[in-house]
């Protein structure tokens, strides 16, 4: 097999060598190194020797189970209820801390709960912060990937027209991409400021004072949404340019033909533009997805993962644990989990968008 790769192709290998070498050194080897470290108890700094601990880092990270709690009953066997009629439950910590009857829940914390009848089902995990960051990261990807890709396509279609001065618009839309994400994050911290941030002022002005200011980044319900909006705005120009390059590879003769056939604008887009953008679409979606999984700088600058872990992400946790808390092995375990997630999602995307 692959005789053309192996025989009399020294020049080819020679040209590929710098690229291969760099990829090996900075991507492949570090990954295997991270995988190895995640099986040890490696610290950032420590006089203690590094020891193999097997899968215990993953065990601590991923342990999750459901605890069923019955409501408290009084002497007569009736369920104790508060003034609103909601049943009262014993605290989760009474099961998870120093309780020999429930060894399987030792050291776990409540993530969330739901009720079936009067019984409470509590999802408890050893590392609740990890699960929250996984959820936040997935929510971020789920919103940012389609919205950013779609918005970028709309912008690309807009700036693909032959109008005078269209380059000015292209430049304007592309500008946020050129600015460092750290600077953009700092600016948006001021824009989202709860006291007299720009956003609160604008909304107050537009609604004639009806809108009362809110603390966008200080509120659990709006913090992640605010970061999503800002991230979409910041990188949309980059993907607009990729879409644009895709649009310009579509032969003008196809458009001429469709207009001769009397196709409407929508039909032209549906049957000429969109099929012509197929490869571009695959690229854009995969790139956005991978970038979104790597969400870090915005979190580090704007919220530090707060309030109440509502904006913490996997990469932020990996950095925080590895450098902040000197726990290299725990951080490596997160990196490996993240790698596996991104890998499987990329494979799924490849499968869905495969050429048929």
């Amino acid at each position, binding site marked *: 097999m692959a005789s053309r790769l192996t025989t009399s192709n020294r020049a080819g290998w020679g040209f590929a060598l710098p690229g291969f070498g760099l990829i090996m050194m900075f991507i492949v080897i570090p990954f295997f190194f991270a995988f190895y470290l995640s099986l040890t*108890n490696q*610290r*950032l*700094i*420590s*006089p*203690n020797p590094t020891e193999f601990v097997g899968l215990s880092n993953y065990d*601590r990270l991923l342990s999750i189970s459901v605890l069923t709690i019955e409501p408290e009953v009084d002497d007569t066997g009736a369920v104790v209820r508060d003034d609103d009629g909601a049943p009262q439950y014993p*605290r*989760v*910590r009474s099961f998870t*801390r120093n309780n020999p009857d429930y060894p399987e829940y030792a*050291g776990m*914390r*409540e993530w969330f709960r739901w009720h079936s009848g009067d019984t409470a089902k509590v999802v408890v995990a050893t590392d*609740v912060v990890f699960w929250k960051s996984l959820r936040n990261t997935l929510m971020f990807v789920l919103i940012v990937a389609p919205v950013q890709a779609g918005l970028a396509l709309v912008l690309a279609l807009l700036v693909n027209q032959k109008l005078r001065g269209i380059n000015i618009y292209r430049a304007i839309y592309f500008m946020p991409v050129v600015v460092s994400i750290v600077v953009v994050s700092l600016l948006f911290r001021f824009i989202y*400021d*709860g*006291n007299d941030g720009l956003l609160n002022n604008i909304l107050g002005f537009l609604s004639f004072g009806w809108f009362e200011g809110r*603390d966008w*980044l*200080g509120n*659990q319900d709006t913090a992640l949404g605010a970061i999503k909006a800002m991230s979409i705005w910041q990188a949309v120009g980059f993907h607009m340019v990729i879409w644009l390059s895709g649009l310009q590879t579509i032969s003008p003769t196809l458009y001429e033909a469709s207009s001769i056939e009397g196709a409407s604008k929508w039909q032209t887009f549906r049957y000429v533009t969109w099929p012509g953008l197929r490869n571009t679409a695959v690229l854009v979606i995969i790139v956005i997805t991978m970038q979104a999984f790597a969400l870090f700088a915005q979190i580090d600058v704007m919220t*530090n993962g*707060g*309030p*109440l*872990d509502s904006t913490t992400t996997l990469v932020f946790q990996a950095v*925080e644990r590895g*450098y*902040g*808390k*000197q*726990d290299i092995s725990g951080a490596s375990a997160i990196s490996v989990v993240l790698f596996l997630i991104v890998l499987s999602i990329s494979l799924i995307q490849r499968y869905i968008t495969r050429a048929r």
Partner: protein
Amino acid sequence: MKLGMTLSAALVASVSWASMASAQTELSMWYHGAGNEVEANILNKIVEDFNASQSDWTVVVESFPQESYNDSVVAAALAGNLPDIIDVDGPVMPNWAWAGYMQPLKIDEAAIEGFLPGPLGYWNGELYSVGLWDAAVAMVTRQSTLDALGLRTPTLEQPWTGEEFQAALDVAKDSGDFEYALDLGMAWTGEWYPYAFSPFLQSFGGDIVDRSTYTTAEGALNGPEALAFGEWWQSMFVDGYAPGTSQDPADRDTGFVDGKYAFSWNGNWAALNALEAHDDTLFLPAPDFGNGPKIGAASWQFGVSSASENPDGASAFIQFALQDQYLADFSNGIGLIPPTAESAAMTENYGEDGAMAVFFDLTQAQALVRPVTPGYVVSAKVFEKALADIANGADVADTLDAAVDEINADIDRNGGYGH
């Protein structure tokens, strides 16, 4: 003629300097204060004086920005490139000493006689680092505020009790004159949280870890005292006494001076600003929540790295730097607390009747260093997050339990940190 004289003098000077330099062994030193000109000038003066005072050593200083200083030292240690003399934040020192980055100092007991306890960094019974200054925190307010609210002025002998403090916050809040009664400085993330807020916890009777063994946080950080502290802490934000974690950093810097807050929990480094704005600014001792009033201690200190081949020279420099004159210079230059009574008498602000003398007394009377353990760097982070979460409304007991578990797991994974 004159020109010739100058030239020859310069020649002689440069030749003698060169011959001196060749005889002296070079000692490298890293410092965290890059970008602060006043600080750099004082340190450079000490270095010049030291280099001129003897013929064995020359110290060469390299400065780093504070934010990246610790990372630089850790990276250098992993790469085996540590300098001879490093400076180190007091609570971090045990971590570096335990990790083998530092060696004990070889200086005379006499040189540190009369020092406040905060600037002396002991680990395993040996002196690893000495600070040329200390820092302290006080409850900053104005006499006019106390008068308007009808409050007694607390003293070192008779600080406010927890109830008195609560009553003071209540009248300040009810007066409607202030945006918030109390400014805790929640905008300052990082080391400020454990430095400024763990003394409240200690005053309640809890602590970040159990200092009798340093092997567990159970009971210290989630016992009944700590729970009482947590409930009080949460009430500060939930009941609207203090601005929370999303406080605007600008408000932290100027809010008290602008009259937005009745009380501000702030350090001596901000004191001169407050005094310049209002003559009647007062620096009150910490309230006593039952276990005595407490404030934090220990700031940046000098130590010798384990990689140094000339620990004698490095220690000699540190001992040289401990002269009262230099201690006073640092205090005058950047407003820090001088570590001895003698040097305090030589300063503008900390001498008798000095505007900030109260900080010296506060440190002497109330200071408690942060837990002296290599695990502090991790537990400080855990503590910071727990306090931020509680301020944001998380369940107090669950949050403190989680913090205890995380600290204990970290201690376990580090084989007890050598305690």
